[in-house]
């Protein structure tokens, strides 16, 4: 357990050293926040209370989307390209002999990274957004820890998905295609382009049931106080359920992949 704490701290520190990249990222998140915020204002001007949000809730949703983007690694930028590269070059054989579990190792590193991204790239855009627009901030103090728990579960789901994607490189050799597909799904089905409660009919129901909704839609609704009491427990259960299922699937693939590496002799 201590080992993984050290790995996580390493993940945090590693990204903390890229100061310019962090500032550049905050700049980009803020620019996008502004662009999307104006389009949402136009949309909610036409249809107030769309999707059960008022305008300031919709704007809050926009800025939460930007603030959580890097932490959830929805545009890539997490561990997966590195892991895929190690699989491609065969360096992964070395990792498999390490006295640590491959999945837990990378999860610890990714949680460290996410923690830094949440602080380094999440806080500043949120503050800038709150200064420029009228946002719906939580009325109760307890909403904040509830929100953070939901964000944490979302990050675990995000990790589990990306781990599956990286494992596919054992069979495809080149992970670019699978990473691209995962990014695509992460963008659309997380609710980044448009809140999932604006998706009509069956598409909406499917989108809200897929794992990616854990990344933004669920935490944002917790932040906006849409889940309370049993609703909140259900939301957590939904996220945790996906996390368990996807981590388990990743483990299965890992076992198969390990066998492959051993057979090929690295």
């Amino acid at each position: 357990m201590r080992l993984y704490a050290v790995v996580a701290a390493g993940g945090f520190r590693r990204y903390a050293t890229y100061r310019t990249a962090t500032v550049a990222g905050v700049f980009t998140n803020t620019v996008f926040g502004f662009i999307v915020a104006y389009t949402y204002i136009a949309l909610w001007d036409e249809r107030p209370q769309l999707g059960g949000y008022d305008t300031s809730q919709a704007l809050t949703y926009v800025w939460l989307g930007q603030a959580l983007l890097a932490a959830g690694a929805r545009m890539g930028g997490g561990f997966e390209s590195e892991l895929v590269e190690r699989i491609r070059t065969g360096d992964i054989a070395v990792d498999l002999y390490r006295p640590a579990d491959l999945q837990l190792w990378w999860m610890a590193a990714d949680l460290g990274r996410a923690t830094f991204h949440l602080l380094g790239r999440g806080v500043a855009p949120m503050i800038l957004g709150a200064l420029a627009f009228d946002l719906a901030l939580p009325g109760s103090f307890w909403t904040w820890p509830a929100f953070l728990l939901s964000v944490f579960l979302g990050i675990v789901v995000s990790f589990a998905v990306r781990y599956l994607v990286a494992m596919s490189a054992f069979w495809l050799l080149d992970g670019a295609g699978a990473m691209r597909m995962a990014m695509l799904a992460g963008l659309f089905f997380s609710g980044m382009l448009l809140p999932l409660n604006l998706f009509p009919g069956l598409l909406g129901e499917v989108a809200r049931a897929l794992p990616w909704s854990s990344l933004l839609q669920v935490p944002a609704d917790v932040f906006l106080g849409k889940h309370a009491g049993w609703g909140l427990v259900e939301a957590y259960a939904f996220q945790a359920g996906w996390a368990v299922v996807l981590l388990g699937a990743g483990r299965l693939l890992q076992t198969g992949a390990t066998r492959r590496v051993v057979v090929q002799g690295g």
Partner: protein
Amino acid sequence: MADTVAVRTEEEGRGLEPAGFAFEDRLRPLEGLRAYGLIMAMWVRSTMAYRASFAMTLFGDLAVTAFDFIAILLMFSHVDALGGYSLPEIALLYGLSATAFGVCDLLLGSMDRVGGRIRDGTLDTLLVRPVPVLAQVAADRFALRRLGRITQGLVVIGYAVATLDIAWTPLKMLMLPMTVLSGAAIFGAVFIAGAAFQFVAQDASEVQNSFTYGGTTLLQYPPTVFAKDLVRGVTFVVPLAFASWLPALYVLGREYPVDLPQWVAFLPPLVAAGCCGLAGLAWRAGLRSYRSTGS
């Protein structure tokens, strides 16, 4: 014995010169394009080494951009107009912006890797080649999958042209390819300037994204949606408005929120040329600073 060997190599060395340098000195831009073509072909062949992955990325790129427009369609499932613009009108703005950006992305898409190349030292391997570094960096990781965005952009333009209720004149028709090409050049200038900036700040590739990806997203919506200052900024500071808004609004017969004479709608080629010139200077300055500081 050693002497005769040396003489022979010297002659051979000279023998290479006419073919190699005189040509290059006079036709440097052409030499750059030629090198670009050679490297591009290598990347295309490399991609084909992993066909399954290529098919997935091609489909992925098409889908990414498609979802982008689907989000707009979903918005219009709730409203009839956005910022006073109908769906076909927004489709024209979207299509022009996406296609222009797509062309630029296809040709220069991996220029933001310059910072990474500086960090891992592989930029040096490009500097010992007898062809312009800009051409080598521009062709880096050339990816045919980026045709996806262009395809989608053209489809959306087609949809807009088919559904728009405008009196099409030859001039208005001509405005469309002119806008796409100038727009691609303007975005290209931003890519190159962004890459040049990485000589100064190697980790700052994301800043570039806010102007390129951010720019194309902005241009996909009508200018009436945005704050005046933002519109002025992308008109006069980073002249992205010339990449789609100004010529497109002329075609649509709409007012531009910033007071400008109508003929500015025909300026995109000039603005593009100016931007590319400035970006070229920035690139040269960046490369010069790298060669004097080594970082």
